[in-house]
């Protein structure tokens, strides 16, 4: 953690018709930092994450990310080049994995480095194999996603995101779709990444895990950040009544 910001959000808001999903968010994420985003269901945590790589375009404010600037109203067609640059630098891990079912686990990981970064196949493959070793799935490289357990699939999905060597990794409730007994294997992979200095924003309900791994935490309620601070501050000595209530529930 050297304090150099990789992501900077200024007054980011998201309005869908009448509904205000996010309002006036300001935050910075520094290189090497692990930030947990917590809050009750429907508070806008996923929208915040998806706003950062523009899968869900925000409607006000701006985001600076890995040297690029995102504004409201960008188009997938017209601004394809900008969005592509941002997305190659920001990896995403989804709650329900979204592995490509028609490709083997290894091909899932090789695909983007080869097609998007233009790496030679051999190099992309080597990169994928290293990542499989790192997430403990070397034996499953040739398996198809549907033959893998949920925990294994999510580890492949993490490898797939890491294969792009992203400056930051966005994890959207990475263990929520898993049986409790499978969560550990995914959480330990994430903890390893944190230990290795990977910048991450993790939306999670796993409070003890967040407490252990995250450097900082944002508490999102009703689309607003009601509290932010070090993980210790937020989870041990929450200032806000709402945070206390939420943590008590969790």
């Amino acid at each position, binding site marked *: 953690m050297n304090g150099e910001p990789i992501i900077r959000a200024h007054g980011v808001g998201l309005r869908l018709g009448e509904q205000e999903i996010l309002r006036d968010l300001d935050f910075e994420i520094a290189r090497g930092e692990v930030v947990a985003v917590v809050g009750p269901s429907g508070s806008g945590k996923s929208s915040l994450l998806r706003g950062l790589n523009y899968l869900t375009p925000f409607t006000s404010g701006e985001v600076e990310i890995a040297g690029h600037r995102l504004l409201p109203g960008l188009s997938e067609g017209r601004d394809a080049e900008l969005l592509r640059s941002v997305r190659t630098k920001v990896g995403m891990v989804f709650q329900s994995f*979204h592995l490509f079912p028609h490709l083997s686990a290894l091909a899932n990981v090789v695909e983007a480095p080869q097609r998007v970064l233009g790496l030679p196949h051999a190099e992309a493959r080597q990169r994928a194999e290293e990542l499989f070793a790192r997430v403990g799935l070397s034996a499953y490289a040739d398996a198809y996603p*549907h033959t893998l357990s949920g925990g294994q699939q999510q580890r492949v999905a993490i490898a797939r995101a890491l294969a792009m060597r992203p400056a930051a990794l966005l994890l959207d409730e990475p263990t929520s779709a898993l049986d409790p007994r499978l969560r550990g294997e995914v959480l330990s992979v994430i903890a390893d990444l944190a230990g290795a200095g990977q910048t991450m924003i993790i939306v999670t309900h796993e409070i003890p895990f967040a407490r252990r791994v995250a450097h900082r935490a944002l508490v999102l309620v009703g689309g607003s950040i009601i509290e932010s601070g070090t993980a210790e501050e937020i989870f041990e000595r929450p200032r806000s009544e709402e945070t206390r209530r939420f943590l008590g529930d969790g």
Partner: protein
Amino acid sequence: MGGKLRRALRRTCSSVFVCGLLAGAVLASHGATLERVRESGVLRWGGDVQGGEPYAFQDPADGDRLIGFEVEIADALARRLGVHAEFVQNDWLTLVPSLERGNVDIVMNGLEITPARRGRVAFTRPYYRFRETLVVRRGDTSIHALADLNGRRVGTLGGSQAHEMLRATPGVEIALYEGVDEPYADLEQGRIDAVLLDHIIAERYGLSRPELAKASDVGEGVYAIAVRPADASLLAAIDAALGGMIADGEIERILKRWKLWSEEQLRLGEGVADVAGPAPARVLDRPQLWLFARATAVTVAISSLAMAVAVAGGLLLSLARRYGGRPLRFAAGVYVEVFRGTPVLLQLYVLYFGLAPVLRLDAFTAAVLGLGLNYAAYEAELYRAGLEAVPVGQTEAALALGMSRRQALRRVVLPQALRVALPGIANDFIALLKDSSLVSVITVVELTKQMTITAVDVRSWLVPGALCAILYLALSYPLSLFARRLERRLVPVPK
């Protein structure tokens, strides 16, 4: 593997068996028809209204009524037999099999006495004497006689005496039509070099076109009424009635009313020399099998190329419908509804004959395009369903990895959508293979058409029909096996 092969064989055999049953029914023989006709008071006569004016056709003023010189002859004959005539519509090519089946008592519809037919039915005395007229484009001085047709493409009606004559002429490429107007339309368009047909047809449908001219009459023939060979008493009764009509001038009055009378009709009793047709084949000999092989190749070529058109077209249409802007979506929707909602036969007619003045496609191209454009509509709906079956998370995951929308579509969404659509695609290919028989209406000789031609030649529908069925199965069955294997291999088992 052995079990699979046995199953395949069993299936093939049962199909052939069914074909055999159907064909066997043709051979059902009928005896005392004259008695039955007298008892019921009805003489059923077979003809094809598609033969058109002036034979037997729908009255333009009253669609329920048939008129024509043959209608009047049939009525007069029936009257003389003390019964009334009832017309039975039948495809011209299957008039004789229909007579053999007992669907009709007699056949009268410009049916020429040919050696081939004489082996199958009994003919009454002739009721009309005609000439075979060769029609060419005005100004074409290269064609005067049959011998000049070497290397030329010549149109006629399948199964007619003119067809026999062309088959006996060396070097002629024959284009077969089912209607009397289309060959002359194609001659005008330059798709064929000449048309050989009975002068009645030539004068009404050919020479009425200012750009066409008569080259010469190259033969003659007679129309007569066909009865089943076993019906000797019916034959005698009709001969007697016809003789009466000739003697008392009723035939002459009818023919004059239809402007068909000529001096040569006075020689009706004389008969004509047999036309030089090819020797009738008794069994499927080597040349026949060669024709079948060629027709099979045509069927395969047309089906495969049409399927390629359909897949490419369907893909574009489905993408337009799912991802296009409003005008594109609308246009693709209209295309699908129009091509799916109208008969492919109609589309083939329009493409080949209807558009000919502005877009002159040769028959093969028109067949491929017609079938392909039609099936593209079905493919489009199939792929659209496939595209919709791919979860939106797949596109998001691809975009999140930095893929362009195009890459996401090509590398992630389409492969999954096509897997969903695959069983339907195989199904459509098999359906297309069979629908390709429709292109015979635009003069392409494919497998089914070859079967009907050969059936007339060898005077049996049984063997050519069975051979045709086996060939279709030999094409479609491996296809469905292949599709099933592909499906098992490619489609991941759902969670």
